[in-house]
């Protein structure tokens, strides 16, 4: 996808400029509209469309890892012929929020998030039992970055 042709200036500014420090006011979208010199309804309509199209995941909070519960990054080494089936099985857990195929012997990578360590371990055990494959369990030990959002480079 070429960002340049798909999104106009207002879309781009909505995507770029409000990734953090979203206004905590009664009418936050009106505040955005004022800064963008457009209307509140237009801002809301555009954010709805960007969300529907998939460019925006949500307008909301990115919560620090382990503030609310526990999570781990897990990986499976899946035989190629079973990858689709096992990816679907893994995505089926509501505790799994990210699930990607990656280029490696460990080719299926997913994040398991739950209330506590026991609940996370129970999901990994269940996946191991159902697939016959032993997951790598790689919990976060130390974060090094501050999540400041993502600076988009428009063409």
């Amino acid at each position: 996808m070429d960002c340049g042709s798909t999104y106009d200036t207002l879309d781009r500014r909505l995507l770029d400029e409000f990734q953090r420090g979203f206004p905590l006011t009664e009418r936050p979208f009106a505040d955005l509209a004022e800064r963008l010199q457009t209307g509140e309804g237009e801002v809301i309509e555009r954010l709805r469309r960007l969300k529907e199209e998939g460019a925006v995941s949500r307008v909301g909070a990115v919560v620090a890892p382990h503030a609310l519960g526990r999570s781990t990054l897990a990986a499976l080494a899946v035989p190629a012929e079973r990858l689709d089936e096992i990816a679907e099985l893994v995505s089926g857990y509501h505790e799994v929020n990210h699930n990607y195929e990656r280029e490696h012997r460990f080719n299926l990578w997913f994040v398991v998030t739950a209330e506590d360590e026991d609940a996370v371990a129970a999901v990994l055990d269940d996946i191991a039992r159902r697939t016959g494959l032993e997951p790598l369990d790689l919990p976060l030990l130390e974060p090094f970055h501050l999540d400041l959002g993502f600076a988009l480079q428009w063409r």
Partner: protein
Amino acid sequence: MALNDKDRRLLHALQDGLPLVPRPYAAVAEAVGLSEADVVARLARLADEGVVKRFGVVVRHRELGYRANAMTVWDVPDEAVAATGRRLAELDFVTLCYRRPRRLPDWPYNLFAMIHGRDRASVLRLVEQATEVAGLAGHPRAILFSRRGFKQRGARYLGQPARPEPALAG
């Protein structure tokens, strides 16, 4: 950072993001049984305390033309990993940077960085740049490009989602 039940209920209600309506905090407040002013004050406090790392528009890289991403991992001696990780994390194209455990013999890597780019070649250039800047030349490394995304959404710590989110193809 101490989270009480009301904080948890609030963050739970926000898992799918703010409702896109003129007074979103009032709508969230009604859903969790708090006042609008309380919701706003709590979110400000949670951001101050670092529980909420950022609050705003969360974009999907892939849909915005960042088609390539590589989880890049290194094996760094334990005594050097913190300093190295902090240098990596300062690079603006590194979106996540964590220390995780090795799992020998299957997995010898302990430093993880997520690097996004428009295509494979640009990601590889960024990986080389990161390697140089963080002093990682010579350390064992693997570059795990993503192929297919089966699922991507915000974390859910408590219970079933209110609405299912479709798995992403491509």
